[in-house]
């Protein structure tokens, strides 16, 4: 039952050939979900929920709200599944677009109300799940994303990450960076183009 023989493993996670069924494909599952298949939705949940929750939590920085918005986003995936058009991009990308937009909508409406800070204080009781997640994340974090982000110019990286991970609008990003609006728009675009070229086109599951 040991996964690896003695003394022949690479430093990072070793490959585990033939272990477990191959991970299901998000596009296939979404097609089944579009036909009202709740079981397929359960599988899709298992496949994408940690990343959807993680992304929303990163943007909102409040676990309790992240939970709520993750639920809204995933229910929207269920509701809209039949409108997914594979010709317009991958299922994963479609799902994360929904999730990200939900998170951004929430963070912007919350930015107006200052109650967010108070709620975050109350809700930041760590669960064991958070702890494990943090522990594992350090090890599993996609090196590629990080490496490609490091490849951008400082301004490109700031423009892209302030918008994507913190949900700021581009005028707000311009304000935060003390940079003219047209420059920020340009950096967001050429930053993404550079990321695309660095990461290639493959989208995971």
């Amino acid at each position, binding site marked *: *039952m*040991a*996964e690896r023989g*003695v*003394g022949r*493993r*690479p*430093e*990072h*996670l070793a*490959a*585990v050939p033939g272990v*477990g069924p191959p*991970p299901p494909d998000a596009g296939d599952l979404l097609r089944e979900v*579009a036909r009202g298949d*709740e079981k397929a939705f359960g599988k899709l949940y*298992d496949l994408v*929920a940690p*990343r959807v929750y*993680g*992304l929303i*939590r990163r943007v909102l920085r409040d676990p309790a709200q992240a*939970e709520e918005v*993750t*639920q809204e986003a995933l229910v929207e995936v*269920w509701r809209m599944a039949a409108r997914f058009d594979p*010709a317009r991009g991958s299922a994963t*990308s479609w799902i*994360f677009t929904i*999730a*990200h937009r939900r998170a951004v909508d929430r963070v912007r409406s919350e930015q107006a109300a200052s109650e967010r800070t108070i709620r975050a204080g109350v809700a930041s009781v760590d*669960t064991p*799940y*958070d702890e*494990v*997640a943090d*522990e*594992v994340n350090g*090890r*599993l974090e*996609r090196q590629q*994303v*990080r490496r490609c982000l490091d490849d951008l110019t400082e301004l490109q990286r700031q*423009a*892209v990450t302030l*918008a*994507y*991970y913190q949900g700021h609008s*581009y005028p707000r990003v311009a304000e935060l960076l003390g940079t003219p609006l*047209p420059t920020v*728009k340009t950096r*967001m*675009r050429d930053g*993404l183009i550079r*990321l*695309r070229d660095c990461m290639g*086109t493959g*989208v*995971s*599951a």
Partner: protein
Amino acid sequence: MTTEIHTLVGAYVLDAVDDIERASFERHLRECDSCRTEVHELSETATRLADNTWSVPPPWLRENVLSEIGRTRQLPPKVDAAPPARPAARWRRFTAAAAAVVAAVGAGSAVYVVQDQRVREEQRVAAAARSDEARVRAILSAPDVVLKKQDVSTGGRVTVATSQLHNAGVVMLAADAVPTGRVFQLWTIRPGGAPVSAGVLHEGQAADVVVLNGLPGATDVGLTIEPPRGSATPTLPMVADVKL
């Protein structure tokens, strides 16, 4: 493609626009095939930014979401709302897409030629790590996951997550370094059986994440300090013994 509105493409993809700008940008997209291609590509790229935000959702969330969808009616497929006066639109879109594919294939093979064995090997390792990662994540986010933690007597901690549903577990080790010339070795102990090696770490390696199949049948996960390349039986005392 070079219109003023198109400079918003990056901000649009990153959801950094307001509702009015989004609506006008989407109007622009309907008129511009190459812009749509760019938006699709950059959206895929933006999605990859979510790769390193992974976090285990609380287990009850799954139940909540599944019961919510049981009460939620799905929308029917979208009837194309575009004005019927433009029958060529779909065809134009197709040819643009086809052209993009041809261009991509051309560029792809050029890249492939210069790609050497090292790059292919890196890709293979990355793909293997990805599939393993997916498995780790699946186990950690299983609704029945059970966590056990134990301090390592020489410093650090072992955390074991097991899931009956997956009939597997994940062992996460974050320990202080062992003396030079010694390595960590993991063991599983089953009722009535001798300890079985569950992997040997490299010299100087004190952190690892390992997937173990069949772990729910074991009673303990042990950690010992061994000579390089490990031992056939554990050298006692164990520096950590996680009771499952």
